[in-house]
C-alpha cells in the first residue's frame, strides 16, 4: 500500500466512524415531539391553502415559499444546457 493510499484509508475510517455515530444520534426516524417540533413545516401545512391557494403543499413550497430556490434550480438546468452546448460546439468558424 502506498503512502497516499494509507492516508486515504485513515481519512476514510475517521469519516466513517463520525458519520455512523452521527446517524445514531439523530432523532428517531419519524418521531416528533416538543423538542424537535417542526414549526416551520407545520406552519406551511396549516397555511398553504390560504396563503398560496395551492392544494399541493410541496408545489406551494417549491413555487411560492421557496420560489427563489426554484429560480436557481431552473438556472442550474439552463446553465447545464448552455455548458453542454458550449462543450460540443464547432471549434472553427
Amino acid at each position: 500500500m502506498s503512502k497516499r493510499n494509507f492516508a486515504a484509508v485513515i481519512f476514510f475510517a475517521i469519516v466513517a466512524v463520525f458519520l455512523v455515530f452521527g446517524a445514531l444520534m439523530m432523532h428517531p426516524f419519524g418521531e416528533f415531539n416538543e423538542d424537535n417540533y417542526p414549526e416551520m413545516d407545520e406552519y406551511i401545512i396549516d397555511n398553504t391553502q390560504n396563503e398560496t391557494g395551492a392544494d399541493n403543499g410541496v408545489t406551494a413550497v417549491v413555487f411560492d415559499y421557496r420560489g427563489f430556490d426554484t429560480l436557481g434550480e431552473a438556472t442550474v438546468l439552463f446553465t447545464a444546457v448552455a455548458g453542454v452546448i458550449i462543450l460540443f460546439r464547432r471549434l472553427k468558424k
Partner: protein
Amino acid sequence: MSGMSRIVKTVTNVAFPIVMIYGLYVIAHGHLTPGGGFQGGAVVASGLAMLLVAYGSVWTMGKIKEKQLSVLESIGAFGFIGLAFLGILMVYLYSGLQGNFFNNFLINQDIFPIFNELGRGFGNINTAGVIPLMNFAVGLKVIAGLFAIVLVMAYATRLKGVKQK
C-alpha cells in the same frame, strides 16, 4: 446512433402520444396533484428521448436543432423570471399592497376574479394564482433543456460513417 428496428419504431409511435399527454397532465395539475413543472417536463423530455433512441440522433437533429431548443428554453426561463418580476410591480397594480420579488400577485386580489380562488381540496384548476403559470414556464424550460442535453450528447457520440436507415 442511427435508427433502430421497425418494431421499436412502431411501439414508439404508439407510446409517444400517451407519454406526451401524461407529461402535460402532470404539468397542468402541478398545484393539485403530485407533480409539477419539473416532473412533467422530465416525463415529456423522456418521451422525446425515446423518439431519439428509436429514430437516431441524425434524424432527430434534422427535425429540430439544439439552437431552436435553446431559444425555447430561453423563452421558458424568461417567462418564469418575468412572472417573478411582476411580483415587484404588484405595488403599482393594486394600490396599497407592497409586493416583493416572487410575490404571488394573483392571489388575494380582486382585479382578476377568475384567478382569485383558493384551493379547498376540490381540484379546481384556476386555484393557486401564479403557480400554474410558473409550472407551465418551468415545464417548457425543462422539456427544451433536458431534450437539448440528450440530443447534443447523442449527436456528439454518434457513430460516424454508419448510413442511416
